[in-house]
């Protein structure tokens, strides 16, 4: 078996400037901090980040914002990060706001091989600008396209060597379906368990979608 466990440095060598990054987490909960810190040790930037939010200044995904590594953010909320708002107003950061449920489904659709979804959310608001609408069963829906990315960077609680993942409580959030939508999916894990050490019913993300694992080096 090809080993999925890589070092932090091997991880960061995989990520080029300009890459599109799906990053798990909700206001920092469930965000892969080690991976973000490792990227910040390099001078890489110009990333397009797709995530629920940009957390707080210099915290979680906010670190990538504060240190100006992001050229575009596709998120549902930026209210907790004044740095994001400031860079957006200055024009150095493009922010695309997507309703949270729509963002979740668009990413899931990308990972599940669907072209998109039909949702009532955003109809009649500025969210519908530039989008097609469709009538089905007497109701109107927005056609929202699927999202995929070069990388999905996840934070998981446990993994076995194959890459089966579990998550800690509300840290599940966007991590589960983002796992499917990265051309290369990399999970930062808290704990490695032996193969067979997870009950098959407890596996939240099956290993087929996880390409690499990273854990804090024990030095």
């Amino acid at each position, binding site marked *: 078996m090809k080993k999925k466990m890589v070092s932090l440095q091997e991880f960061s060598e995989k990520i080029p400037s300009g890459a599109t990054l799906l990053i798990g987490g*909700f*206001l*920092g*909960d*469930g965000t892969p901090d080690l991976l973000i810190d490792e990227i910040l040790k390099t001078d890489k930037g110009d990333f397009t980040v797709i995530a*629920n*939010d940009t957390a707080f200044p210099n915290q979680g995904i906010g670190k990538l914002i504060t240190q100006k590594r992001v050229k575009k953010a596709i*998120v*549902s*909320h*930026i*209210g*907790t990060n004044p740095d994001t*708002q400031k860079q*957006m107003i200055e024009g150095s950061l493009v*922010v695309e*706001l997507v*309703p*949270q*449920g*729509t963002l*979740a*489904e668009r990413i*899931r659709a990308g990972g599940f091989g669907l072209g998109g979804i039909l*949702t*009532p*959310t*955003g*109809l*009649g*608001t*500025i*969210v519908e600008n530039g989008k097609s609408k469709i009538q089905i069963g007497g109701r109107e829906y927005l056609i929202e396209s699927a999202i995929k990315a070069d990388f999905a960077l996840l934070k998981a609680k446990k993994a076995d060597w194959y890459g089966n993942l579990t998550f*800690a*409580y*509300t*840290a*599940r*959030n*966007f*991590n*589960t*379906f983002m796992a499917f939508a990265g051309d290369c999916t990399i999970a930062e894990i808290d704990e490695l368990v032996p193969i067979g050490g997870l009950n098959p019913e407890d596996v*939240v993300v099956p290993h087929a979608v996880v390409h690499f694992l990273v854990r804090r080096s024990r030095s």
Partner: protein
Amino acid sequence: MIAEEKAKGYIARRVAKEFEDGDVVNLGIGIPTLVANYIPSGIQIFLHTENGLLGMGPNPSAGYEHPNLRNAGSSSVSFLPGSAIFDSAVSFGLIRGGHLDATVLGALEVDEKGLLANWMVPGKMIPGMGGAMDLVTGARRVIVAMTHVNKNGSPKIVKSCMLPLTSIRKVDLIVTEYAVFKVSETGLVLTEYSEESSVEEIKGLTAAHFEIDPQLKVIER
């Protein structure tokens, strides 16, 4: 004029009477969060938070927080017995699919048709819609909980929203410190007013036309 802190308590206490036993409810940030403190005895509601938890309990005591058990405002919360954890896709499946009995949200503006604007002020404040658009579109009942006027004293209930709408789905109820309006087919209907105010005063604080319910009564506190 009711002082702000007192107003918040009044609003939350009144909203808390809207639920039936067993309701699944999502409370927004701000005044809506306070609603949980006023649920009448004998009524059990299940709190949903959009980051992936149904059955949310109060903030744990200091020192007993878990970094990965949080609400949508990033505060530490707890599990009540019978809780369930899920990802954001399932969480919004519950919301969009009509599986929430109610959501309580703040507002920047509500207009006389019952339309809500609560997520941005163009050129000034653009926090993003987060989960608000899905909540207003999908919850079975949408309750607005807000102070009657904004910090400058201007009415938040207006003829027509000037700010970008959150949804074209109308809200069901508006609760302020002075008044309760239900949203009918034809527009706003004042059903209750506070003992500190009068219908005339409420008209003065409201920039929208409203009908008066024949059973108009004073808000019970």
